[in-house]
């Protein structure tokens, strides 16, 4: 009996250690955001930094920009991803090992830094797109090509996210969709539904839980990501994680609690998204008992 309790504990030990390190990191950030940073001689807990932040224009603009980037890119990624996934399933390419399908998974593997390089090659004012438009006579010069990369609309950032996230959403959903389409979709077609009807009335609704999950994952990720807004973003407004890191490395060490307060705001919004994910996850378990979805 004793062994029964000891073995799982031993097995869990390394995981618990790593989890503890992770949680310690989050707590340390939270504590510092309340102005307690002993190495800097700050020991008095205070809400000052939050108050300052909430009163400043900069925070709201950064927060708004981060939310704008993540919501727009995630909505478009889900639309594009579901479209691609449906195309793969309906054209029969989702089954077995298809070389082309393997190729489409490549963007999921590439670091964001590399995607930023691609964006610079293609979308900058001297990029291939601008050259093409010039060759076609649609723009008169380098300057008349809209600055897609460092502008406030964040077109470059959003397109870069899409390049990675459309395949991610498609492959997150494809296993489930292929299975549903083969079984229940087939049944609907046998009962007289047209392929389009069967797809929109049966297959797509049954895949909704997986699609929602994929949406929340890309939403949470792009909201908190640093690389792309840092490399391709405008000077103002800065995405919230970028602004927080700037405060963090500023020579004035008293800015650290401010950075931590910004981080805590990012943390709570991300956790809110995670909580939603958790609720949907439970819901999916109930709805799809028996059917297994691929979550990797």
């Amino acid at each position, binding site marked *: 009996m004793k062994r029964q309790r000891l073995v799982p504990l031993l097995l869990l030990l390394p995981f618990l250690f790593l989890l503890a390190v992770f949680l310690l990191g989050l707590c340390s950030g939270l504590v510092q955001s309340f102005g307690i940073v002993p190495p800097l001689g700050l020991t008095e807990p205070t809400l000052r930094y939050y108050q300052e932040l909430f009163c400043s224009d900069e925070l709201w603009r950064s927060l708004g920009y981060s939310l704008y980037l993540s919501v727009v890119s995630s909505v478009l990624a889900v639309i594009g991803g579901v*479209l691609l996934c449906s195309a793969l399933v309906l054209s029969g390419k989702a089954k077995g090992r298809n070389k082309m399908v393997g190729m489409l998974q490549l963007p999921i593997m590439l670091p964001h830094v590399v995607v930023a390089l691609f964006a610079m090659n293609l979308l900058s004012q001297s990029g291939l797109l601008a050259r093409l438009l010039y060759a076609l006579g649609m723009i008169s010069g380098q300057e008349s090509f809209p600055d897609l990369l460092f502008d406030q609309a964040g077109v470059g950032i959003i397109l870069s996210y899409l390049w990675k996230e459309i395949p991610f959403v498609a492959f997150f959903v494809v296993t489930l969709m292929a299975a549903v389409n083969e079984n229940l979709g087939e049944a609907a077609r046998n009962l007289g539904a047209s392929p389009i009807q069967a797809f929109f009335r049966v297959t797509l609704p049954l895949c909704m839980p997986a699609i929602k999950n994929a949406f929340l994952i890309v939403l949470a990720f792009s909201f908190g990501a640093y690389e792309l807004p840092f490399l391709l973003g405008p000077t103002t407004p800065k995405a919230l994680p970028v602004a927080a890191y700037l405060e963090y490395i500023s020579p004035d060490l008293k800015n650290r609690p401010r950075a931590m307060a910004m981080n805590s705001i990012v943390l709570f919004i991300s956790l809110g998204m995670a909580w939603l994910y958790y609720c949907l996850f439970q819901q999916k378990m109930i709805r799809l008992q028996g059917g297994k979805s691929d979550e990797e």
Partner: protein
Amino acid sequence: MKSKLSLCCKGIVWLAMFGVLLPLIVLLIWCFTERWAWPELVPQVFSLRGLREVLGSQALMILHSSILLSATAALIAVVVGLMTARAIVFYQFPGQKLLLFASMLPLIVPTTVFGMGIHLLLIRVGLSDTVPGVILVHVICALPYTVSIMTDSTRAIGKKLEEQARVLGAGSLRAFWSVSMPALMPAIFSALAMAYITSFSQYFLTLLIGGGNVRTFTVIMVPYLQNGDRTLAAGYTTLFLLITVLVFLVFRKIVQRFYPCLEQNRE
């Protein structure tokens, strides 16, 4: 009607293919480009400067250490994931569900939040600016993937065969090693791959925790991106892409060689 639909679907797949391949083709061209003046559609001067730099000793050293670092982090993350999976699947204890949810947290909480929070503590224990410190944070980032992949596969394989081996006289470690381990191999491979990619792609954490001492591919890439030397940036990227693909092919070959029957089953 039906052919129209399937034509449309094929079109979408081809369009996606084009979208994925276009940046890669442009990248390859940039590798060999010395001068590509506006508004020409093809470069004027080609050179091997990028290639020479990339195959120089310093770049190869970074490549070597970068792969080693990511492989170590991936291996640790998979072993921890496997242990955690066995505890969660084969034993009952309170808080199991919460634990599984907690294992997903590093995926949800942005790396900037975790990195800046843990930085001070790592400085205090002397792990910041060191390779072990960077490996530690990379392992944490890879855990959500390895735990979830290993939990799913451990659950799918179950305990029955291992118990058979125990009944036939094998010790518990031996039963695991010669019965469950081979069956888990494909899952271990995909978990390793995910963990390796996660570690390899990490820019922010490597920069912050490594403090410039630990130089990986993404860390040395960024300055080239910022000062606009696209030839070198393209050279590095191409080399690392090739290496990554190679690492995966080697991995897969190893799995196929030692467990040929499993690979066939999977297909």
